[in-house]
């Protein structure tokens, strides 16, 4: 069954178009999705997933599952950057260690959305509050990462941007505002709003996601070259840490009795790494860190790993534990 799940996932349109993007780069095709369309498509995905999640929440209401899931999300987004920071510090300087740690403490919205699409295809339910969990996990890791860097770097205290500046930036970043805003509006407009926007937010959703993953494939493949500089240690890090975080997620969810769908999404949040919000914040807050390391690692290693193999494997493990 394990293998079948992986094969099914490999054979799904989003993953196949991701491969197509990678292949296009490898055969040196001039295929590209011109800017700023990828940015627009990702805004659309956040809009749709947030709005649908909110509508979902307006039906189900808040249960005590919510508290557990949001609590877990928040705790992990603080723990992950701390433990990875100390691992990374053994091989890298403080700036790069903090930057990568922040990246892995945060999440990848597209990986999450792909997992949602994976669940929907299999008719598995999940709670609308998981969208809130995703939004909640975007930013804390940025703050934790920057605090770690400031504590361990020599001239950590003569930084111009106070920690409060970083706080504000982390909380007002565009994707967080988009997800949370859409979620709240989805709650407020409920079934009526959901029905009115359904053709836009639901019907064409999978198509847009598929098209977007083509661009992600192009992006990821272009970044792979940069990985040579990163070396074996970092490349291994980009696969081992997600697996490790996923195992934590799977076990904790099992112990707390989190339902199948929610468990997969939480696990994917733990296992994924940010390649938009965090890198952008770090680029400004920690110019000493090398974007040639933290961007390709999450984009060209962890993202493809999760989307291609991670999601079906995590799902298999969750079900295997449950049975």
């Amino acid at each position, binding site marked *: 069954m394990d293998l079948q799940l992986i094969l099914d996932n490999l054979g799904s349109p989003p993953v196949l178009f991701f491969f197509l993007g990678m292949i296009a780069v490898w055969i040196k095709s001039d295929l590209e999705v011109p*800017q700023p369309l*990828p*940015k627009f498509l*990702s805004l659309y995905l956040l809009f749709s997933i947030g709005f649908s999640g909110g509508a979902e929440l307006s039906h189900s209401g808040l249960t005590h599952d919510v508290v557990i899931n949001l609590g877990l999300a928040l705790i992990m987004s603080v723990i992950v950057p701390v433990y990875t920071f100390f691992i990374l510090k053994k091989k890298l300087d403080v700036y790069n260690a903090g930057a990568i740690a922040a990246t892995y403490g945060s999440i990848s919205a597209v990986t999450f959305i792909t997992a949602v699409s994976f669940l929907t295809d299999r008719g598995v339910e999940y709670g609308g509050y998981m969208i809130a969990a995703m939004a909640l996990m975007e930013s804390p890791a940025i703050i934790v990462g920057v605090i770690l860097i400031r504590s361990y770097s020599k001239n950590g205290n003569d930084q*111009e941007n106070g920690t409060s500046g970083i706080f504000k930036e982390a909380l007002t970043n565009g994707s967080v505002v988009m997800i949370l805003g859409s979620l709240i509006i989805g709650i407020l407009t409920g079934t009526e709003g959901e029905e009115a926007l359904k053709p836009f937010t639901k019907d064409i959703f999978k198509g847009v996601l598929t098209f977007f993953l083509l661009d992600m494939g192009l*992006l990821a493949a*272009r*970044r792979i070259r940069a990985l040579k500089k990163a070396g074996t240690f970092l490349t291994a890090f980009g696969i081992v840490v997600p697996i490790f975080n996923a195992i934590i997620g799977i076990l904790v969810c099992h112990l707390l009795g989190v339902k199948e769908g929610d468990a997969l999404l939480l696990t994917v949040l733990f296992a994924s790494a940010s*390649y*938009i*919000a965090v*890198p*952008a*914040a770090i*680029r*400004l807050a920690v*110019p000493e860190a*090398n*974007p*040639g390391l933290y*961007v390709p690692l999450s984009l060209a290693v962890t993202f493809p790993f999760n989307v291609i193999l991670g999601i079906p494997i995590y799902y298999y493990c969750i079900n295997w534990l449950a049975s």
Partner: protein
Amino acid sequence: MKFVKKIEIVTGSLQSKKITQLLEEHSISYTIINNVMGKGDSGYQDGDGLHEAFQNRYLLVACSEEQLNKIVEPLRKMLAKSGGMCLVTDAQWLMH
């Protein structure tokens, strides 16, 4: 024609906001070109990162020598932090 100093700055999009703020404070006019790519000491800025943090901005300013002197020190400090390029040339402004 009038002699002016022409300043050309290329730096990260996010960082450039402080520079335009500096120009605003000194009431100096400026021109901005967005979505600028490049390669410098801190690697590639190729706009591929789905965020303007990974793009540059090009600023073009024509001003008098006094105005230049007023902003040159804060500008130097900002660029020391943000990286990038700043070129100064002499030019003639076609009066109109």
